[in-house]
C-alpha cells in the first residue's frame, strides 16, 4: 500500500528494519556484521544512556521555517520549547532569502493534569479555531507529542472535524517521541503531512512540467551558503533549483511536482517523499552520495547530469571546479598533513566528511554516526581502504565518545551542533560540521571547511586552556573501560 494514504505514517524502524542505534568496534567489522559489540542490523540498545533528541526536534527544524504557517504543538508546555533555538535559524534563514526577519510562530496547547485525565481533544479543537482567527495562516501544523500519544487524543479526528470550518489547511504531524527510536522518523512524518495536503492534483501538474527544474531536497541540512553553491553549480548546467521543503511557502509546493528530477542531499532523509513524488507525479529521483568532499560532490553532480542528459557539460564543469579548488586548497594542506581526526554526526554527514578529510590529508581515528541504515553502505565502501579506525553508532551518547577520545587523542574533532563540548572539554580543538550558518556542501563547502579547520588547528589555545580545567562528569575508571560495554545485543532480533 501507499503509506501516504494512511493517516499516520510508519516509523522508520518499520520501513527500514535494519536501522540501528548501537554498534561499536573497528570499521572493518561493520561490513561483516561482526565486532566486539557489533549490533548493527539488530535491535540493540544500551543499558546506560544519556539524553537524546526525538523526532520532534528535527521536525520543528523544518516546520518552523515554513512561511505563513503556524506550528501548534499539542502536548505539555515544555515539548517544543526547543523552537527558541530553531527560531534562530528560521530568522536568519528568512533574512538570507530576502524575506523579513521574523520569529516563527509556535504555540502549545500546554496540556495540564485535568487534560491528562479527561483528554485534550477539546482544548485542541478550541485552539485550532482561535489560531485560525488570530494568525490567519495558510497552514496550521498540529503536532502530536508524547502526551497525547499516551492519553489517546486523536489529533487526526480533531483536524478532520474542523477542516470545513476554518480557513487554514490543517495538517497533523505525529511526533510522539516514544514511538520511534530514530530521529529520521521526523523527516517522514513532516513529508507525510506536506505530501498529503499541499501537493497538487496530478492532472494539473502534467501541463506544467518543467524539464529544467530540479528539486534539491533540504530538510534543514543546508543553510543559505550551501544552497547558493548548489544553485551556482546547477546554473552552469542550465538547471533551475527548487529547494524543498525548508523555507518553502505552502503556495509554492506544487513546484516540487513539476520538476524533472529530485535529488537528495542526504540520502537518509528523503526516500519517503521521493518515492511518493515519483509514484504520483512521475518525478524520478537520485538518492546516492552526499555532496560533501571533492569526489562526492563530483559524483553527485554527475549522477544528476546523467539522468538529465547533461553529462558532457557536467564533466567539463567538474574538471574545472576540481582544478580550481585543489589549487586553492594548497595553502592549507601542509597544516593538515598527517593530522588525526575524529568525526561525530548524522550517519551520512559523518561518513562523507570522513571522505573529505582524507582528501585533505587527515588520518581518521574514529567515526561516530547517530544511527546506521542501509543508505550508508555506499559510503562505507568509499572508506574501506582503511580498516583500522573505530566505528561507533550512537544517538550521541557522549560517554562512549569521551572514552574513545581519551584513548585516541585526535588532533581535531568534528561534530554536530551540541555535540562538540565533550571534545572541547578534553582540550581537543573542535570543529562544528552541522550548523546552517556555515558552508559545507559543494566545492566551496570543501574550501570553507578547510579554511575553518586551518584556523582551528593553527590557533588551538582556547581548547588547550580547557585541557586542565574542562569538566566532564565521568569517573576515572570509565576511561579505562571498554567503551562499548553498555551496548546490549538483542540476539533474538539479530539476523
Amino acid at each position, binding site marked *: 500500500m501507499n503509506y501516504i494514504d494512511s493517516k499516520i505514517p510508519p516509523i522508520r524502524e518499520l520501513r527500514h528494519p535494519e536501522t540501528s542505534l548501537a554498534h561499536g568496534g573497528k570499521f572493518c567489522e561493520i561490513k561483516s556484521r561482526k565486532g566486539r559489540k557489533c549490533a548493527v542490523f539488530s535491535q540493540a540498545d544500551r543499558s546506560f544512556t544519556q539524553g*537524546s533528541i526525538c523526532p520532534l526536534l528535527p521536525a520543528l527544524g523544518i516546520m518552523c521555517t515554513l512561511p505563513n504557517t503556524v506550528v501548534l504543538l499539542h502536548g505539555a508546555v515544555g515539548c517544543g520549547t*526547543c523552537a527558541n533555538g530553531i527560531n534562530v535559524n528560521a530568522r536568519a534563514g528568512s533574512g538570507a532569502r530576502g524575506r523579513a526577519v521574523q520569529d516563527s510562530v509556535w504555540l502549545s496547547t500546554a*496540556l495540564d493534569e485535568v*487534560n491528562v485525565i479527561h483528554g485534550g481533544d477539546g482544548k485542541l479543537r478550541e485552539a485550532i479555531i482561535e489560531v485560525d482567527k488570530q494568525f490567519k495562516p495558510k497552514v496550521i501544523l498540529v503536532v502530536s507529542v508524547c502526551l497525547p500519544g499516551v492519553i489517546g487524543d486523536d489529533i487526526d479526528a480533531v483536524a478532520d472535524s474542523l477542516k470545513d470550518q476554518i480557513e487554514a489547511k490543517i495538517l497533523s504531524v505525529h511526533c510522539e517521541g516514544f514511538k520511534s527510536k530514530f530521529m529520521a522518523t521526523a523527516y517522514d512524518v513532516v513529508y507525510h503531512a506536506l505530501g498529503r495536503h499541499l501537493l497538487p492534483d496530478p492532472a494539473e501538474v502534467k501541463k506544467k512540467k518543467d524539464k529544467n527544474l530540479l528539486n534539491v531536497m533540504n530538510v534543514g541540512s543546508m543553510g543559505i551558503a550551501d544552497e547558493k553553491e548548489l544553485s551556482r553549480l546547477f546554473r552552469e548546467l542550465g538547471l533551475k533549483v527548487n529547494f524543498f521543503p525548508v523555507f518553502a511557502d505552502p503556495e509554492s509546493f506544487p513546484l516540487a511536482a513539476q520538476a524533472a528530477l529530485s535529488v537528495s542531499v542526504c540520502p537518509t532523509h528523503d526516500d519517503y517523499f521521493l518515492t511518493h513524488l515519483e509514484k504520483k507525479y512521475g518525478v524520478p529521483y537520485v538518492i546516492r552520495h552526499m555532496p560533501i568532499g571533492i569526489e562526492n560532490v563530483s559524483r553527485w553532480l554527475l549522477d544528476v547530469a546523467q539522468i538529465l542528459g547533461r553529462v558532457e557539460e557536467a564533466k567539463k564543469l567538474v574538471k574545472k571546479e576540481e582544478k580550481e579548488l585543489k589549487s586553492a586548497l594548497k595553502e592549507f594542506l601542509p597544516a593538515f598533513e598527517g593530522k588525526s581526526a575524529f568525526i561525530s554526526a548524522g550517519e551520512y554527514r559523518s561518513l562523507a566528511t570522513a571522505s573529505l578529510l582524507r582528501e585533505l590529508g587527515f588520518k581518521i581515528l574514529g567515526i561516530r554516526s547517530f544511527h546506521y541504515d542501509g543508505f550508508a553502505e555506499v559510503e562505507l565502501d568509499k572508506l574501506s581502504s582503511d580498516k583500522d579506525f573505530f566505528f561507533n553508532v550512537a544517538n550521541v551518547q557522549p560517554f562512549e565518545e569521551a572514552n574513545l577520545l581519551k584513548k585516541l587523542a585526535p588532533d581535531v574533532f568534528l561534530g554536530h551542533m551540541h555535540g562538540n563540548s565533550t571534545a572541547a572539554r578534553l582540550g581537543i580543538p573542535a570543529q562544528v560540521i552541522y550548523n546552517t550558518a556555515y558552508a559545507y556542501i559543494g566545492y566551496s563547502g570543501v574550501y570553507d571547511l578547510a579554511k575553518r579547520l586551518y584556523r582551528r588547528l593553527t590557533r588551538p589555545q582556547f581548547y588547550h586552556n580547557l585541557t586542565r580545567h574542562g569538566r566532564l562528569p565521568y569517573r576515572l575508571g570509565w576511561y579505562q573501560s571498554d567503551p562499548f560495554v553498555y551496548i546490549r545485543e538483542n540476539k533474538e532480533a539479530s539476523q
Partner: protein
Amino acid sequence: MTNASYVERPRWSCALGGALAAVGNLPQTVPILHCGPGCAGNFAWTNNGASALNVTGPCLGLNVPATNLQENEVVFGGLERLKEEILNCFEIMEGSIYFVLTGCLPEVIGDDVESLVLELNSPKRPVLFSSVPGFNGDSYKGYEEALKTIFLGLAAKKTSKNSSLVNVLGVPPAMDPFWRGNLEGIESLLSLLGLKSNLFFGPRADLELIKKSGSAAKNIVVSPLYGLEAAELALALYGLDYVQAPLPIGAAASERFLRIVGQALKIPSTKVEAAISEASRIHYLYLEPIIDLYNDMELQRHALVVGDVNYALALSDFLIEDLGWASELVAVVNDLTESQKEAVLDFRKRLGGPYSPEKLIFENRAEAIRQEAFKIWKSDEGKKYRNDRKPIFVAGSSLERTLAAQLGAAHLSLTFPVTNRAVLTTGYTGYLGGLRLTEDLVDACVSGR
C-alpha cells in the same frame, strides 16, 4: 494556570526543564532523567535559543543520563529500565548526589519511582527524586520542586541555628538568563550585612552549605512567587522562617533589600544604614562619569517592560527610581491565577518601589502586547503637537524585537528568551548590577554613535 486554549511561544519550558536546569547546576550532583527520548535535547536547544547561550554543564545538554523511554516501557512500565540506568550511572558518573527527575511519560503510566529511589538511596550515596512532569507545570514549578526535594532530602535535620547563614531562593537557573550574576550580586549585598549566603546553584554554590541550609537563620526569597513553596516547606520542617523581597536590581532596590533583610534578621539599623551609606557612596562614584551624557544626550526614555514576575516589576522600579525613566507599560508574561495576580500586585505595593508603572498588564501574547503598546505610541500619529512619549526603550525578551522595530525603539534582551546575548558573569542585582544594567541600556541607545 491559564484558561486559554493555547500558549503563544511559551516563555518558559516545563517543570522537568526547570528542575533539570536547577539540579544540573547543583554542586557535585548527577541528574538522571526518567522521561521520553527527546526531553534532554529539547532543553539543550531551548537554552541555546533562550538562556543567553547557556547550554552545557558537565551533566547538562546531551550529557545528562536519561532513560529515553520507548513504546515498550510505556506499555510494560519503565521502572526496570530506570533501575538499570541508575545502577549503571553509579558506575560511570562521578557525583556525590544522584537526583532522579521524572517527566510526563512515567507519571502517566504510573511508574512507582519513589519506592525505587528509596530502595537505592543510602546516606553514603544519596539518591533524590522530584516528580516534575510537564503537564504539572512550567519551569518555575520545576525549580520549586527541586528546591523542595533539596530541603527534604539534603538539608540537615537538627543542628543549632547558624545566625549568619542565609539561603537565597527565587532565582531560577536558566529561566533567569542572568541567574549566575544575579545570585552573585545578592551574595555581595548580603555580605555587606555580614551574612554568608547559601546560593544552592552555580559556580559559587557549596554542597556543604547546602547540607546546612536547614539550620540557616533565614530563607530570603527574592520573588513574589518562586521559591515560596520551598520556603513554606522549610518553615514546616525546620522552623526556618523566610523573608520576601523583590529582585534587588540597582541602588534603590538594593537599599530596600538591605533594610528588609536587616530588619528580618534583627541586625541593628545603624549597621544596616552604615552599609547602605558606604555602598551608595561608591556606587555614585562609579555612576558619576555618565552624568554629562545623561543630560547632553537626553538619555531619559519611555519604557515598555516585558518579563516574568521577578523581572517585570523589578526592572520597572529600576528604570523609574535609578534612571528617572518613564515606565509606560509593563507586561507580566506568566500565566497566573487571579489570586496569584493579586499576590503579585500586593507584593509590589508592600515591598516594591514607591512609583507604579503607568500601566501594568498580565499578558504574554505578542499581538495583545502590541495592541496595548500601539494605544500608547501610535494613536494620534501625525498630529502636529502631541506628547508622543518618545524616545521609546523596550526592555524585554528577544521576542520583543519585532515590536521594538515597529515602535522605532531601542531594545535590550533582558528576560527569557534571551537569544542574542552571551552571558557568563553578567547579573543586574545589587549596586554593581544596577551600574551594569545602566551600561547595557545606554549601550543600546548609543550603539550607532
